[in-house]
Protein backbone atom coordinates (compact mmCIF):
# COMPACT_ATOMS: atom_id res chain seq x y z
CA UNK A 1 0.00 0.00 0.00
CA UNK A 2 1.57 3.29 -1.00
CA UNK A 3 1.74 6.45 1.05
CA UNK A 4 -1.17 8.21 -0.63
CA UNK A 5 -3.55 5.37 0.12
CA UNK A 6 -2.22 5.09 3.65
CA UNK A 7 -2.78 8.79 4.25
CA UNK A 8 -6.28 8.48 2.88
CA UNK A 9 -6.91 5.54 5.17
CA UNK A 10 -5.62 7.45 8.20
CA UNK A 11 -7.74 10.41 7.28
CA UNK A 12 -10.86 8.31 7.00
CA UNK A 13 -10.07 6.53 10.26
CA UNK A 14 -9.95 9.84 12.11
CA UNK A 15 -13.14 10.97 10.44
CA UNK A 16 -15.07 7.82 11.24
CA UNK A 17 -13.75 7.66 14.77
CA UNK A 18 -15.02 11.16 15.52
CA UNK A 19 -18.70 10.45 16.28
CA UNK A 20 -17.82 7.30 18.22
CA UNK A 21 -15.21 9.11 20.25
CA UNK A 22 -17.47 11.98 21.22
CA UNK A 23 -20.34 9.69 22.13
CA UNK A 24 -18.07 7.33 24.05
CA UNK A 25 -16.50 10.15 26.06
CA UNK A 26 -19.96 11.36 26.97
CA UNK A 27 -21.13 7.90 27.89
CA UNK A 28 -17.99 7.40 29.99
CA UNK A 29 -19.03 10.33 32.18
CA UNK A 30 -22.51 8.91 32.61
CA UNK A 31 -21.34 5.41 33.38
CA UNK A 32 -18.70 6.54 35.85
CA UNK A 33 -21.54 8.25 37.65
CA UNK A 34 -23.45 4.98 37.64
CA UNK A 35 -25.97 5.56 34.88
CA UNK A 36 -26.16 3.11 31.99
CA UNK A 37 -27.24 5.18 29.01
CA UNK A 38 -28.67 2.88 26.39
CA UNK A 39 -30.38 5.87 24.78
CA UNK A 40 -27.13 7.01 23.14
CA UNK A 41 -28.54 6.00 19.79
CA UNK A 42 -31.56 8.18 20.43
CA UNK A 43 -29.44 11.19 21.35
CA UNK A 44 -27.30 10.80 18.23
CA UNK A 45 -30.30 10.45 15.96
CA UNK A 46 -32.14 13.38 17.51
CA UNK A 47 -29.08 15.55 17.14
CA UNK A 48 -28.47 14.47 13.55
CA UNK A 49 -32.04 15.27 12.56
CA UNK A 50 -32.29 18.56 14.44
CA UNK A 51 -28.95 19.59 12.99
CA UNK A 52 -29.98 18.81 9.44
CA UNK A 53 -33.36 20.47 9.72
CA UNK A 54 -32.20 23.69 11.36
CA UNK A 55 -29.16 23.92 9.10
CA UNK A 56 -31.56 23.84 6.19
CA UNK A 57 -33.95 26.38 7.69
CA UNK A 58 -31.32 28.83 8.85
CA UNK A 59 -28.89 28.03 6.05
CA UNK A 60 -26.02 27.61 8.48
CA UNK A 61 -24.23 24.52 9.67
CA UNK A 62 -23.18 26.16 12.92
CA UNK A 63 -26.78 26.86 13.83
CA UNK A 64 -27.45 23.22 13.01
CA UNK A 65 -24.72 22.19 15.40
CA UNK A 66 -26.21 24.28 18.20
CA UNK A 67 -29.71 22.95 17.68
CA UNK A 68 -28.31 19.44 17.43
CA UNK A 69 -26.78 19.83 20.87
CA UNK A 70 -30.10 21.15 22.11
CA UNK A 71 -32.02 18.19 20.73
CA UNK A 72 -29.61 15.71 22.28
CA UNK A 73 -29.92 17.58 25.57
CA UNK A 74 -33.69 17.13 25.44
CA UNK A 75 -33.31 13.39 25.00
CA UNK A 76 -30.69 13.31 27.74
CA UNK A 77 -33.03 15.23 30.03
CA UNK A 78 -35.74 12.63 29.43
CA UNK A 79 -33.29 9.84 30.16
CA UNK A 80 -32.08 11.64 33.27
CA UNK A 81 -35.58 12.24 34.62
CA UNK A 82 -36.59 8.64 34.03
CA UNK A 83 -33.49 7.00 35.45
CA UNK A 84 -32.28 9.37 38.14
CA UNK A 85 -35.48 10.88 39.47
CA UNK A 86 -38.05 8.19 38.74
CA UNK A 87 -35.49 5.43 39.15
CA UNK A 88 -36.92 3.43 36.27
CA UNK A 89 -35.08 0.42 34.91
CA UNK A 90 -32.22 1.88 32.89
CA UNK A 91 -32.16 -0.75 30.19
CA UNK A 92 -35.88 -0.50 29.46
CA UNK A 93 -35.88 3.29 29.45
CA UNK A 94 -32.87 3.47 27.16
CA UNK A 95 -34.38 1.11 24.63
CA UNK A 96 -37.74 2.83 24.85
CA UNK A 97 -36.21 6.22 24.21
CA UNK A 98 -34.34 4.83 21.21
CA UNK A 99 -37.59 3.60 19.70
CA UNK A 100 -39.31 6.87 20.47
CA UNK A 101 -36.60 8.99 18.88
CA UNK A 102 -36.35 6.69 15.87
CA UNK A 103 -40.07 6.99 15.30
CA UNK A 104 -40.16 10.74 15.83
CA UNK A 105 -37.21 11.51 13.59
CA UNK A 106 -38.47 9.23 10.85
CA UNK A 107 -41.92 10.81 10.94
CA UNK A 108 -40.59 14.35 11.11
CA UNK A 109 -38.07 13.77 8.36
CA UNK A 110 -40.88 12.56 6.09
CA UNK A 111 -42.75 15.76 6.82
CA UNK A 112 -39.78 18.08 6.52
CA UNK A 113 -37.75 16.44 3.80
CA UNK A 114 -40.40 14.33 2.11
CA UNK A 115 -40.13 10.70 1.08
CA UNK A 116 -36.71 9.60 -0.08
CA UNK A 117 -35.41 13.11 -0.04
CA UNK A 118 -32.25 14.18 -1.69
CA UNK A 119 -32.17 17.56 -0.01
CA UNK A 120 -28.67 18.71 0.64
CA UNK A 121 -28.17 20.80 3.73
CA UNK A 122 -25.32 23.20 4.43
CA UNK A 123 -22.55 21.17 5.99
CA UNK A 124 -19.37 21.52 7.96
CA UNK A 125 -16.47 21.73 5.60
CA UNK A 126 -12.97 20.56 6.42
CA UNK A 127 -10.40 23.24 7.02
CA UNK A 128 -6.67 22.79 7.47
CA UNK A 129 -4.74 23.88 10.55
CA UNK A 130 -1.82 25.93 9.18
CA UNK A 131 1.42 24.56 10.55
CA UNK A 132 0.36 21.14 11.70
CA UNK A 133 -1.02 20.12 8.34
CA UNK A 134 2.46 20.11 6.88
CA UNK A 135 3.64 17.22 9.03
CA UNK A 136 4.20 14.37 6.59
CA UNK A 137 1.47 11.72 6.43
CA UNK A 138 0.02 12.34 9.90
CA UNK A 139 -0.42 16.04 9.29
CA UNK A 140 -2.22 15.66 6.00
CA UNK A 141 -4.42 12.95 7.44
CA UNK A 142 -5.29 14.56 10.72
CA UNK A 143 -5.18 18.31 10.38
CA UNK A 144 -7.32 18.83 7.32
CA UNK A 145 -10.68 17.77 8.71
CA UNK A 146 -13.91 19.46 9.70
CA UNK A 147 -14.26 21.05 13.08
CA UNK A 148 -16.01 18.07 14.64
CA UNK A 149 -12.92 15.91 14.19
CA UNK A 150 -10.80 18.45 16.03
CA UNK A 151 -13.45 18.73 18.74
CA UNK A 152 -13.50 14.98 19.17
CA UNK A 153 -9.75 14.86 19.69
CA UNK A 154 -9.99 17.72 22.18
CA UNK A 155 -12.74 15.87 24.03
CA UNK A 156 -10.28 13.22 25.18
CA UNK A 157 -8.08 15.45 27.37
CA UNK A 158 -11.17 17.46 28.26
CA UNK A 159 -12.93 14.39 29.61
CA UNK A 160 -9.82 13.31 31.47
CA UNK A 161 -9.51 16.72 33.13
CA UNK A 162 -13.21 16.73 33.92
CA UNK A 163 -13.11 13.33 35.56
CA UNK A 164 -9.75 13.52 37.32
CA UNK A 165 -9.12 17.16 38.10
CA UNK A 166 -12.45 18.72 38.95
CA UNK A 167 -14.70 18.47 41.93
CA UNK A 168 -17.52 17.41 39.64
CA UNK A 169 -15.41 14.52 38.37
CA UNK A 170 -14.76 13.41 41.91
CA UNK A 171 -18.48 13.46 42.65
CA UNK A 172 -19.11 11.48 39.50
CA UNK A 173 -16.66 8.77 40.43
CA UNK A 174 -17.99 8.65 43.98
CA UNK A 175 -21.60 8.43 42.80
CA UNK A 176 -20.72 5.49 40.60
CA UNK A 177 -18.56 3.54 43.01
CA UNK A 178 -20.30 4.05 46.34
CA UNK A 179 -23.31 6.34 46.25
CA UNK A 180 -24.12 5.81 49.89
CA UNK A 181 -20.73 7.00 51.03
CA UNK A 182 -20.94 9.88 48.60
CA UNK A 183 -24.33 10.83 49.96
CA UNK A 184 -23.05 10.76 53.52
CA UNK A 185 -20.19 13.02 52.52
CA UNK A 186 -22.59 15.61 51.26
CA UNK A 187 -22.44 14.89 47.54
CA UNK A 188 -25.87 15.02 45.97
CA UNK A 189 -25.93 11.76 44.06
CA UNK A 190 -29.06 12.76 42.19
CA UNK A 191 -27.72 16.08 41.02
CA UNK A 192 -24.39 14.57 40.05
CA UNK A 193 -25.96 11.79 38.03
CA UNK A 194 -28.42 14.17 36.41
CA UNK A 195 -25.62 16.49 35.36
CA UNK A 196 -23.54 13.56 34.15
CA UNK A 197 -26.35 12.44 31.84
CA UNK A 198 -26.75 15.99 30.56
CA UNK A 199 -23.02 16.08 29.82
CA UNK A 200 -23.50 12.95 27.78
CA UNK A 201 -26.25 14.79 25.95
CA UNK A 202 -23.93 17.64 25.05
CA UNK A 203 -21.22 15.29 23.82
CA UNK A 204 -23.72 13.27 21.81
CA UNK A 205 -25.18 16.45 20.41
CA UNK A 206 -21.82 17.36 18.92
CA UNK A 207 -21.36 13.79 17.76
CA UNK A 208 -24.76 13.37 16.15
CA UNK A 209 -24.43 16.31 13.77
CA UNK A 210 -21.38 14.61 12.34
CA UNK A 211 -23.64 12.22 10.51
CA UNK A 212 -25.95 14.72 8.94
CA UNK A 213 -23.70 17.78 8.61
CA UNK A 214 -20.18 16.45 8.59
CA UNK A 215 -20.48 13.34 6.52
CA UNK A 216 -23.23 13.25 3.93
CA UNK A 217 -24.90 16.63 4.42
CA UNK A 218 -28.45 15.34 4.56
CA UNK A 219 -30.66 13.31 6.84
CA UNK A 220 -31.47 9.66 6.22
CA UNK A 221 -33.92 7.77 8.42
CA UNK A 222 -32.07 5.82 11.06
CA UNK A 223 -28.75 7.08 9.77
CA UNK A 224 -26.79 6.49 12.95
CA UNK A 225 -27.25 2.79 12.38
CA UNK A 226 -26.10 1.38 15.71
CA UNK A 227 -23.27 3.84 16.34
CA UNK A 228 -24.62 4.52 19.80
CA UNK A 229 -24.24 0.89 20.69
CA UNK A 230 -20.72 0.75 19.33
CA UNK A 231 -19.85 3.73 21.54
CA UNK A 232 -21.27 1.81 24.50
CA UNK A 233 -19.14 -1.16 23.54
CA UNK A 234 -16.08 1.10 23.31
CA UNK A 235 -16.58 2.19 26.91
CA UNK A 236 -16.73 -1.43 28.01
CA UNK A 237 -13.76 -2.40 25.90
CA UNK A 238 -11.81 0.54 27.29
CA UNK A 239 -12.44 -0.62 30.84
CA UNK A 240 -13.99 2.71 31.82
CA UNK A 241 -10.75 4.65 31.55
CA UNK A 242 -10.33 7.66 29.27
CA UNK A 243 -7.28 6.75 27.21
CA UNK A 244 -8.18 3.07 26.63
CA UNK A 245 -11.66 4.14 25.53
CA UNK A 246 -10.00 6.53 23.06
CA UNK A 247 -7.93 3.65 21.71
CA UNK A 248 -11.01 1.46 21.52
CA UNK A 249 -12.80 4.09 19.46
CA UNK A 250 -9.80 4.35 17.14
CA UNK A 251 -9.86 0.60 16.77
CA UNK A 252 -13.53 0.55 15.89
CA UNK A 253 -13.08 3.51 13.58
CA UNK A 254 -10.43 1.50 11.80
CA UNK A 255 -12.70 -1.48 11.34
CA UNK A 256 -15.38 0.77 9.89
CA UNK A 257 -12.89 2.40 7.53
CA UNK A 258 -11.60 -0.94 6.39
CA UNK A 259 -15.14 -1.85 5.45
CA UNK A 260 -14.89 0.84 2.82
CA UNK A 261 -11.23 0.44 2.01
CA UNK A 262 -11.14 -3.27 1.30
CA UNK A 263 -13.64 -3.20 -1.57
CA UNK A 264 -11.87 -0.15 -3.00
CA UNK A 265 -8.59 -2.01 -2.91
CA UNK A 266 -10.35 -5.05 -4.22
CA UNK A 267 -9.43 -7.20 -1.27
CA UNK A 268 -12.00 -9.90 -1.02
CA UNK A 269 -12.76 -10.26 2.68
CA UNK A 270 -16.40 -10.66 3.76
CA UNK A 271 -17.26 -7.25 5.18
CA UNK A 272 -19.56 -8.70 7.78
CA UNK A 273 -16.59 -9.98 9.72
CA UNK A 274 -15.40 -6.41 10.09
CA UNK A 275 -18.88 -5.37 11.11
CA UNK A 276 -18.96 -7.96 13.86
CA UNK A 277 -15.51 -7.07 15.13
CA UNK A 278 -16.51 -4.38 17.67
CA UNK A 279 -19.00 -6.71 19.30
CA UNK A 280 -16.59 -9.65 19.34
CA UNK A 281 -14.05 -7.37 20.99
CA UNK A 282 -16.57 -6.35 23.62
CA UNK A 283 -17.43 -9.96 24.36
CA UNK A 284 -13.77 -10.80 24.78
CA UNK A 285 -13.29 -7.83 27.06
CA UNK A 286 -16.28 -8.70 29.22
CA UNK A 287 -15.11 -12.31 29.46
CA UNK A 288 -11.91 -11.03 30.96
CA UNK A 289 -9.71 -12.29 28.18
CA UNK A 290 -8.07 -8.90 27.85
CA UNK A 291 -7.54 -8.20 31.51
CA UNK A 292 -9.65 -7.62 34.56
CA UNK A 293 -12.75 -5.59 33.96
CA UNK A 294 -13.53 -2.91 36.50
CA UNK A 295 -16.88 -1.27 35.90
CA UNK A 296 -18.14 1.33 38.33
CA UNK A 297 -19.48 -0.71 41.22
CA UNK A 298 -22.96 0.72 41.14
CA UNK A 299 -23.48 0.92 37.41
CA UNK A 300 -27.16 0.81 36.49
CA UNK A 301 -28.34 0.44 40.07
CA UNK A 302 -30.79 3.20 40.97
CA UNK A 303 -29.95 5.05 44.14
CA UNK A 304 -32.56 5.44 46.84
CA UNK A 305 -32.10 8.20 49.33
CA UNK A 306 -32.57 6.95 52.86
CA UNK A 307 -34.55 9.61 54.55
Amino acid at each position, binding site marked *: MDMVVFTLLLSSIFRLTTPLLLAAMGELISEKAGVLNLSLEGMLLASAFAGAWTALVYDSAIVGLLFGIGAALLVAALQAIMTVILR*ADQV*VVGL*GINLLVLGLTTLLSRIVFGNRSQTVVPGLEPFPIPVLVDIPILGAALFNQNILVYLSLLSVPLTWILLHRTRFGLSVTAAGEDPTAADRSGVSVRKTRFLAVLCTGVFCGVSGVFYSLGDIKTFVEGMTNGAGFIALVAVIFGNWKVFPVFLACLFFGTTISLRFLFPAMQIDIPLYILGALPYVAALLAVMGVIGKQKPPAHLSIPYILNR
Partner: protein
Amino acid sequence: MVPLLFGMESPSPLHIGIFVVLIFAFVVWFFLKKSYLGLELKAIGLNERAAHRFGLRPKTHIVFAMGIAGALAGIGGAFMVMGEQYNLKEEFTSGYGFDGLVVGLLARGSPLAVILFSTFFGFLRSGGISMELLAGVPSSVILIVQGLIIVTVAGAAYFKQEGSH
Protein backbone atom coordinates in the same frame (compact mmCIF):
# COMPACT_ATOMS: atom_id res chain seq x y z
CA MET B 1 -43.53 -24.76 5.65
CA VAL B 2 -45.63 -24.85 8.77
CA PRO B 3 -49.31 -25.84 8.61
CA LEU B 4 -51.70 -22.91 8.35
CA LEU B 5 -54.64 -22.80 10.71
CA PHE B 6 -57.37 -22.13 8.21
CA GLY B 7 -55.97 -23.92 5.25
CA MET B 8 -53.96 -22.78 2.28
CA GLU B 9 -56.84 -21.13 0.48
CA SER B 10 -57.94 -18.71 3.18
CA PRO B 11 -56.50 -15.19 3.40
CA SER B 12 -55.64 -15.68 7.06
CA PRO B 13 -51.91 -16.11 7.62
CA LEU B 14 -52.33 -17.74 11.03
CA HIS B 15 -50.35 -20.91 11.47
CA ILE B 16 -50.06 -23.50 14.23
CA GLY B 17 -47.28 -21.39 15.67
CA ILE B 18 -49.75 -19.51 17.79
CA PHE B 19 -50.83 -22.69 19.56
CA VAL B 20 -47.28 -23.91 19.98
CA VAL B 21 -46.29 -20.59 21.48
CA LEU B 22 -49.18 -20.51 23.92
CA ILE B 23 -48.37 -24.06 24.98
CA PHE B 24 -44.79 -23.05 25.60
CA ALA B 25 -45.93 -20.06 27.64
CA PHE B 26 -47.93 -22.41 29.80
CA VAL B 27 -45.00 -24.80 30.08
CA VAL B 28 -42.71 -21.98 31.17
CA TRP B 29 -45.24 -20.81 33.73
CA PHE B 30 -45.61 -24.33 35.07
CA PHE B 31 -41.87 -24.84 35.14
CA LEU B 32 -41.20 -21.63 36.99
CA LYS B 33 -44.03 -21.87 39.46
CA LYS B 34 -44.36 -25.56 40.23
CA SER B 35 -41.08 -27.29 39.63
CA TYR B 36 -38.10 -27.50 41.94
CA LEU B 37 -35.75 -26.27 39.25
CA GLY B 38 -37.94 -23.22 38.77
CA LEU B 39 -37.76 -22.46 42.45
CA GLU B 40 -33.98 -22.80 42.36
CA LEU B 41 -33.81 -20.34 39.49
CA LYS B 42 -35.95 -17.86 41.37
CA ALA B 43 -33.75 -18.20 44.46
CA ILE B 44 -30.64 -17.53 42.41
CA GLY B 45 -32.27 -14.51 40.86
CA LEU B 46 -33.26 -13.04 44.19
CA ASN B 47 -30.02 -13.58 46.05
CA GLU B 48 -27.19 -15.31 44.33
CA ARG B 49 -24.94 -15.51 47.36
CA ALA B 50 -27.55 -17.00 49.61
CA ALA B 51 -28.37 -19.59 46.99
CA HIS B 52 -24.72 -20.47 46.72
CA ARG B 53 -24.48 -20.88 50.47
CA PHE B 54 -27.51 -23.09 50.34
CA GLY B 55 -25.67 -25.40 47.98
CA LEU B 56 -27.05 -24.43 44.59
CA ARG B 57 -24.73 -23.75 41.70
CA PRO B 58 -25.70 -20.38 40.21
CA LYS B 59 -23.29 -20.61 37.29
CA THR B 60 -24.73 -23.81 35.86
CA HIS B 61 -28.27 -22.69 36.51
CA ILE B 62 -27.77 -19.36 34.80
CA VAL B 63 -26.17 -20.96 31.78
CA PHE B 64 -29.02 -23.42 31.65
CA ALA B 65 -31.61 -20.67 31.89
CA MET B 66 -29.97 -18.67 29.12
CA GLY B 67 -29.79 -21.77 26.99
CA ILE B 68 -33.51 -22.34 27.37
CA ALA B 69 -34.15 -18.68 26.61
CA GLY B 70 -32.09 -18.97 23.45
CA ALA B 71 -33.93 -22.11 22.44
CA LEU B 72 -37.30 -20.42 22.85
CA ALA B 73 -36.13 -17.44 20.85
CA GLY B 74 -34.93 -19.84 18.21
CA ILE B 75 -38.39 -21.34 17.99
CA GLY B 76 -39.74 -17.85 17.43
CA GLY B 77 -37.28 -17.24 14.66
CA ALA B 78 -38.00 -20.59 13.08
CA PHE B 79 -41.70 -19.82 12.99
CA MET B 80 -40.98 -16.46 11.42
CA VAL B 81 -39.14 -18.08 8.57
CA MET B 82 -41.19 -21.24 8.14
CA GLY B 83 -44.59 -19.88 8.96
CA GLU B 84 -44.52 -16.51 7.28
CA GLN B 85 -41.69 -15.53 5.05
CA TYR B 86 -40.75 -18.85 3.48
CA ASN B 87 -37.29 -17.60 2.63
CA LEU B 88 -34.19 -16.29 4.37
CA LYS B 89 -33.28 -12.66 3.91
CA GLU B 90 -30.75 -10.40 5.54
CA GLU B 91 -32.04 -8.90 8.76
CA PHE B 92 -35.31 -10.74 8.47
CA THR B 93 -35.85 -10.30 12.19
CA SER B 94 -36.22 -6.51 11.71
CA GLY B 95 -35.82 -5.67 15.37
CA TYR B 96 -38.17 -8.32 16.78
CA GLY B 97 -35.41 -9.34 19.15
CA PHE B 98 -35.45 -5.93 20.79
CA ASP B 99 -39.23 -6.02 21.00
CA GLY B 100 -38.97 -9.38 22.72
CA LEU B 101 -36.41 -8.01 25.14
CA VAL B 102 -38.65 -5.09 25.99
CA VAL B 103 -41.68 -7.36 26.47
CA GLY B 104 -39.67 -9.58 28.78
CA LEU B 105 -38.48 -6.63 30.83
CA LEU B 106 -41.89 -5.00 31.04
CA ALA B 107 -43.61 -8.25 31.98
CA ARG B 108 -41.31 -8.59 34.97
CA GLY B 109 -41.50 -12.33 35.37
CA SER B 110 -45.13 -13.05 34.66
CA PRO B 111 -45.81 -15.33 31.67
CA LEU B 112 -49.35 -14.00 31.41
CA ALA B 113 -48.03 -10.46 31.11
CA VAL B 114 -45.64 -11.69 28.43
CA ILE B 115 -48.55 -13.08 26.42
CA LEU B 116 -50.54 -9.88 26.76
CA PHE B 117 -47.67 -7.51 26.03
CA SER B 118 -46.43 -9.48 23.05
CA THR B 119 -49.93 -9.72 21.60
CA PHE B 120 -50.24 -5.99 22.02
CA PHE B 121 -46.91 -5.33 20.36
CA GLY B 122 -47.83 -7.70 17.58
CA PHE B 123 -51.02 -5.76 16.97
CA LEU B 124 -49.05 -2.54 16.93
CA ARG B 125 -46.65 -3.85 14.33
CA SER B 126 -49.28 -5.28 12.10
CA GLY B 127 -51.45 -2.20 12.48
CA GLY B 128 -48.52 -0.04 11.53
CA ILE B 129 -47.99 -1.89 8.31
CA SER B 130 -51.68 -1.74 7.41
CA MET B 131 -51.81 1.90 8.34
CA GLU B 132 -49.04 2.67 5.95
CA LEU B 133 -50.63 0.70 3.15
CA LEU B 134 -54.20 1.86 3.58
CA ALA B 135 -54.02 5.32 5.08
CA GLY B 136 -50.61 6.56 4.05
CA VAL B 137 -49.61 7.20 7.66
CA PRO B 138 -45.94 6.32 8.12
CA SER B 139 -45.43 3.25 10.27
CA SER B 140 -42.90 5.22 12.31
CA VAL B 141 -45.90 6.46 14.29
CA ILE B 142 -46.03 2.95 15.71
CA LEU B 143 -42.45 3.28 16.89
CA ILE B 144 -43.40 6.47 18.67
CA VAL B 145 -46.32 4.72 20.36
CA GLN B 146 -44.15 1.79 21.36
CA GLY B 147 -41.44 4.04 22.71
CA LEU B 148 -43.91 6.10 24.72
CA ILE B 149 -45.53 3.01 26.19
CA ILE B 150 -42.21 1.51 27.16
CA VAL B 151 -40.95 4.70 28.74
CA THR B 152 -44.22 5.31 30.56
CA VAL B 153 -44.57 1.78 31.91
CA ALA B 154 -40.95 1.81 33.02
CA GLY B 155 -41.47 5.12 34.77
CA ALA B 156 -44.71 4.00 36.39
CA ALA B 157 -42.72 1.60 38.52
CA TYR B 158 -41.74 4.58 40.64
CA PHE B 159 -45.29 5.28 41.63
CA LYS B 160 -46.08 1.69 42.41
CA GLN B 161 -43.07 0.49 44.31
CA GLU B 162 -42.32 3.48 46.48
CA GLY B 163 -41.47 2.01 49.83
CA SER B 164 -41.30 -1.59 48.78
CA HIS B 165 -37.73 -1.44 47.41
